[in-house]
């Protein structure tokens, strides 16, 4: 590798011109102040609790997006909760017990509460009685449903889908 001082003299002179490339006027007057301000800002952030620094780093636009997402999630949770509550919502048994009911129809003119559907195999697999069949609504006792004087052996239960029992009884 031969390298004489003269060999690259002109290149060096050309390169030396680059030292004249300067940033905007006044740039170096402000530079140190900007660095110190940046250091102080970073130290202030480091001394904050973690959640404050997280909030600060998010910025207001991201914060708004996070708030929107949280609101949507809240609405979703409320919706799911309401649906679950409705499934468990059963009519007040005492209300029906207080009604004057005909002996043939325990419900009288009142529409019976909706009972849970049951599988056909469970229903049709049961022994076919020679008497008419009554239904005790889910969540009711026989007394509350107005079913009286039914022998215990005339009552049979069929499991429903939500692990409750749907009870039937044989009318006299």
């Amino acid at each position, binding site marked *: 590798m031969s390298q004489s*001082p003269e060999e690259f003299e002109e290149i060096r002179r*050309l390169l*030396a011109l680059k030292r004249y490339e*300067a940033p905007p006027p006044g740039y*170096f007057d402000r530079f140190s102040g900007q660095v110190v301000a940046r250091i102080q800002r970073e130290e202030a952030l480091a001394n904050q609790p973690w959640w404050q620094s997280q909030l600060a780093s998010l910025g207001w636009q991201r914060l708004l997006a996070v708030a929107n997402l949280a609101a949507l999630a809240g609405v979703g949770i409320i919706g799911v909760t309401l649906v679950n509550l409705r499934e468990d919502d059963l009519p007040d048994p005492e209300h029906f017990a207080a009604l004057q009911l005909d002996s043939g129809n325990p419900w009288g003119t009142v529409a019976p509460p909706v009972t849970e559907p049951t599988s056909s195999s469970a229903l049709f697999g049961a022994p076919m009685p020679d008497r008419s069949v009554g239904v005790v609504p889910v969540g009711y006792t026989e007394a509350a449903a107005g079913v009286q004087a039914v022998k215990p052996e005339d009552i049979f239960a069929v499991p429903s889908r939500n692990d409750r029992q749907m009870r039937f009884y044989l009318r006299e």
Partner: protein
Amino acid sequence: MESMSTSLPLRGAVPVEEPGDRALVAKAQAGDCDAFELLIQRHQQRIYGLCYHLTGNHEDANDLAQEAFVKAWKALRNFKGDSSFYTWIYRIAYNGTLNHLKQRRNRTPHLSLNDLDAQAEHDADLVQLVSDRTPRRDAGLTELQQHLNDAMLRLSEEHRTVVTLHDIQGLPHDEIARIMDCNPGTVRSRLFYARQQLQAWLADFRK
């Protein structure tokens, strides 16, 4: 072998072994922010210059130079003084800039400082180059600058660093070797190769 110091005047630069640096570093290590600000003011032009010549644009150079000093402040307690503060801050800036360049390799750099320093018009070499030595006499400073910048950006990062530190900023080989964490022989060979490349690419301006 070239002489270790060049005749190039280093604008706003401080001597490599600045006598007051150690005292300022000690104060800064004790938490004196004013002392650290003085250190910044002493070295800001060289650090910015290194970042600028490596990245090729003012915005990145500004960010990287600031970041280098912020990192230095954070790591100051670990600075044992094995090297000068000057070498240490250079090394931080160099490594930070290399990382930045690796992350942004697909971004085309552009050396885009609009203004030459006001002192440029008094530089004898510059006047000669743009008047007598240029093949096209109407070639102005901008064209010359553009050719030079294009050639610089064609060099690898290591070669560009060596040229920047030695031919532009006037650092000796030993100092460059410490900054780049290599031996002085490697610095010399990189400098030789880089100049050869530049010479070939800038042939028009040399004839």
